[in-house]
């Protein structure tokens, strides 16, 4: 007797294959059941291809039919944030927005009208960028919201797009070792975890490096509670051991990396043909051991040296690998022990095990990239460790190239990065922002430095429009709030986003009509476009746009049609991709563009708010805000069924730190620093490292006794990030102190 996993329909029910497009980066297939136009329930769709459902995904209908859902446009009656609203018609809302946009454009220029959007749907996201362009306004790039340090590292090293760099490190059929860095996929990325778990069931060892003992760590053979923000030092210490013992993969380094490229001693730049008068002026040069002279890196028959010191055309130079080895030489296990607070013998044995495992897969998380202001260096060091041991995979690189320019028919916006937008609003740098359109973007809850946002950014804006499903902590401060359709109420294209997830394209299908008066993003923008005199802009239906997005003619999209996507998920068509889309075509562990910052190689730099800085005298505890297990950022915090699993915020604190402060489990405590405070209950648990405190993020100010976790964070811009991609919010590079508190 075999029981069926197939969907069981009840009489009168229809089933539509759609997708849960929420921002956990997975995009699980969903079978949505409807009866008489009502979404009755959801089930997992065609797994294992696209993941499975989770507790959140099962609550999709609870979001759609939530009693607090915004039903119609409203405008502010009282002061901002006071919570007094008046219902208005869509006509009045659109007329008001159009006239305020025109007025502000007249006063400060069109780029003072800014748009920001968060979400996963390809069309939804592109629409906001496109509309900002049509208005000649500004689009605020949201990846700086904790996501951009990864691409900063990986664009430099691999030339990869967004989070696809992760694929180079772990797309192995059956890894012998899984090394997880600052990542908790067992709780936050179930699809990625399934691959790791399967590897362990085939015999792979699992080692987890994290200041916090997570569910992922609990499944590991070895758990290394590293000091926050020192992952780069550990990777460098491992490289030290590997190079001392000559366990590195010289053939891989010579063939696939910039390791053999000569670097000038005088200025740190790659030695190029033009430097020594070669005909191939742009060619990178290597030292050919056969001819004992410089040669272009593509020269046939050359045998490039990885080590040594040379003079080429009178210029002193060393191969990039030699420079790496010279730098790594300083990271002895003893020194790395001092930095990371992991035992020296552990560092040595980990290095030996890593080098011997064929292959060893690495999985990196935001614990690395948010744990330090220099999180990009952590990722670069981990990438370099993989590179010198040949633990790089070229499989599964299937980026989809859909049409991303389709909404730019009326022009392009100015772009401002998320962290730069603070100064644009407060100081007009690089240009003033006076009106802000927030499309499902919870600025007040999810962006750093709450008190600055509410104290300076909100007052600095003359007009705020929030487009959301609920009255969020951000919508509370808006002048006009527009109700938006849920992902069960409009069509969209969901494309893979990398980061160890599946590669499939899927269709988000409209399953039900929008409840009450909400409109889809497309409808909202197309209505507003008419008011703003943007003739012919956004005059087609969503299906037409999805067809256009799929019609680039790029080989990755061959045979993929809207009709076929209605039936289920589709992988991108096989197509040639370059090994590395870097300038050199090789893995670039050496980055010329960061020479001026002393970061051409992935050195360890102490976090901005290091637990060993002077600031730590006053604020000795490192504060992190890891991703929650049962929620997704702020989403689902208002679902009663989810609240049963996750009733409210707690501050995780080690028993040692708690005892020192007279704090017992369940006590009301206050975490604070110079920027602000948050009051909540303490959870005294040994799973958090001494010196570290943590709140699972996403809770709103109203969920705390006072303050909010984002009151502790800061928006400091890292210039290295700005060079490569865009500056990241170092959400966990934060020091704080904790004390017992009272309720006011």
């Amino acid at each position, binding site marked *: *007797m075999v*029981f*069926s*996993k*197939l969907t*069981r329909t009840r009489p009168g029910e229809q089933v539509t294959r759609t997708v849960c497009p929420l921002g956990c980066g997975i995009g699980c297939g969903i079978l949505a059941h409807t009866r008489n136009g009502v979404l009755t*329930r*959801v*089930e*997992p769709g065609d797994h294992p291809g696209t993941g*499975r*459902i*989770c*507790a959140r995904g*099962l*609550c999709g209908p609870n979001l759609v039919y939530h009693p607090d859902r915004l039903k119609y446009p409203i405008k502010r009656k009282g002061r901002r944030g006071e919570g007094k609203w008046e219902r208005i018609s869509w006509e009045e809302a659109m007329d008001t927005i159009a006239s305020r946009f025109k007025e502000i454009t007249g006063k400060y220029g069109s780029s003072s009208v800014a748009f920001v959007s968060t979400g996963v749907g390809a069309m939804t996201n592109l629409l906001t960028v496109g509309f900002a362009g049509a208005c000649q306004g500004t689009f605020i790039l949201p990846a700086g919201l904790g996501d951009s340090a990864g691409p900063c590292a990986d664009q430099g090293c691999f030339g990869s797009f967004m989070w696809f760099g992760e694929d180079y490190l772990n797309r192995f059929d059956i890894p012998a070792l899984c090394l997880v860095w600052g990542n908790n996929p*067992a*709780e936050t990325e*179930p699809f990625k*975890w*399934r691959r790791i*778990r399967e590897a362990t069931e085939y015999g792979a060892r699992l080692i987890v490096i994290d200041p916090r*003992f*997570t*569910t992922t*760590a*609990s*499944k*590991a*053979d*070895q*758990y*290394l*509670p*590293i*000091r926050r923000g020192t992952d780069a030092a550990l990777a460098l210490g491992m490289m030290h051991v590997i190079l001392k013992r000559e366990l590195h993969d010289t053939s891989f380094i010579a063939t696939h990396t910039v390791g053999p490229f000569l670097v000038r001693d005088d200025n740190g730049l790659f030695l190029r043909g033009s430097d020594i008068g070669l005909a191939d002026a742009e060619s990178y040069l290597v030292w050919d051991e056969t001819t004992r002279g410089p040669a272009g890196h593509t020269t046939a028959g050359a045998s490039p040296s990885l080590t040594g010191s040379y003079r080429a055309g009178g210029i002193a130079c060393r191969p990039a690998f030699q420079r790496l080895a010279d730098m790594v030489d300083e990271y002895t296990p003893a020194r790395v022990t001092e930095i*990371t*607070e*992991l*035992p020296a013998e552990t560092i040595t044995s980990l290095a030996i095990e890593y080098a011997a495992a064929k292959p060893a897969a690495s999985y990196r998380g935001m614990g690395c990239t948010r744990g330090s202001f220099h999180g990009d260096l952590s990722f670069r060091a981990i990438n370099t460790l993989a590179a010198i041991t040949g633990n790089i995979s070229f499989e599964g690189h299937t980026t989809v190239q859909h049409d991303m320019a389709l909404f730019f028919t009326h022009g392009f916006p100015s772009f401002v990065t998320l962290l730069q937008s603070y100064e644009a609003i407060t100081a007009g740098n690089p240009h003033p922002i006076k009106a802000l359109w927030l499309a499902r973007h919870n600025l007040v809850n999810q962006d750093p430095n709450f008190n600055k946002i509410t104290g300076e950014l909100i007052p600095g804006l003359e007009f705020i429009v929030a487009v959301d499903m609920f009255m969020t902590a951000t919508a509370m401060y808006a002048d006009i709030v527009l109700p938006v359709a849920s992902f069960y109420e409009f069509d969209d294209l969901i494309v893979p986003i990398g980061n160890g997830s599946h590669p499939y394209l899927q269709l988000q299908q409209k399953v039900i009509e929008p409840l009450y008066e909400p409109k889809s993003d497309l409808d909202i923008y197309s209505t507003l476009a008419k008011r703003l005199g943007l003739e012919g802009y956004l005059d087609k239906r969503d299906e037409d746009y999805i067809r256009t997005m799929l019609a680039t003619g790029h080989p990755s999209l061959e045979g993929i049609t809207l009709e076929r996507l209605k039936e289920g998920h589709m992988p991108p068509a096989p197509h040639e991709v370059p090994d590395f889309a870097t300038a050199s075509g090789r893995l670039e562990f050496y980055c010329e563009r960061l020479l001026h910052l002393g970061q051409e190689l992935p050195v360890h730099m102490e976090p901005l708010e290091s637990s060993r800085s002077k600031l730590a005298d006053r604020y000795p505890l490192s504060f992190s805000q890891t991703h929650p*297990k*049962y929620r997704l950022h702020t989403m689902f915090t208002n679902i009663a*069924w989810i609240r*049963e*699993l996750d009733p409210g915020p*707690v501050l*995780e604190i*080690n*028993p*040692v730190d708690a005892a020192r402060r007279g704090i017992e489990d369940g006590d009301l405590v206050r975490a604070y620093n110079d920027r602000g405070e948050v009051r909540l209950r303490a*959870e005294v*648990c*040994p*799973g*958090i*490292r*001494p*010196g570290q405190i943590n709140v699972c993020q996403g809770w709103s100010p109203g969920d705390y006794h006072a303050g909010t976790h984002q009151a502790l964070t800061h928006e400091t811009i890292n210039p290295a990030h700005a060079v490569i991609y865009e500056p990241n919010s170092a959400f966990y590079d934060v020091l704080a102190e904790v004390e017992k508190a009272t309720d006011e």
Partner: protein
Amino acid sequence: MSEVNKRYALVIDMDRCTGCQTCVMACKVEHNILKGSGIRMDSNGTNPHNTGTNTAPGKPTGLAMHYRPIACMHCESPPCADACPEDAIYKDIGGIVVLDQSKCNSCQACIPACPYQAVFYEPGRDSVFKCDLCSERVKDDFEPFCVVCCNQDAMYFGDILDPASRVSQIIAGKSAEPFRAQLKTGPGTHYCPPRPRRDRG
């Protein structure tokens, strides 16, 4: 098909379970439970990381975390049925312990009788509720909904009396055992223990 010589049960792989509570939510969805669920997530301690010591930097000892989804064990001799004055709880075909809502008068005598705390009062129905292995689905040859939804393929359903069934093979292959068998209620649910981890700090 004869169900007389069958014993349907869940087999749950604790090595795979991540405590994601998708099963807990699936039960609420399938049975439309306002508050509570036919499954609860038991973990070691009151919070997920409550075991072990971690006082000196870099040298924690004994940190451990495990999750055990607990639903009605569909016991051979269910104490809840013995406690019910209305005979509303009985062993159905396939060994499934069923609670007949039409006979239940919400006296709640069954709740303390269950040593696994698998029966609970459900305010939405104003009656008690417990897992029935989705017997309505099983009758149509569909797996229980929690098993369909399990995010990490950690739940299996089948006939544990049939040595050829997948569940029997998993029980044998992974040394799965009932939870607290010493209570002698003859629980049907089997748990595959987490595999031992070497040198975990």
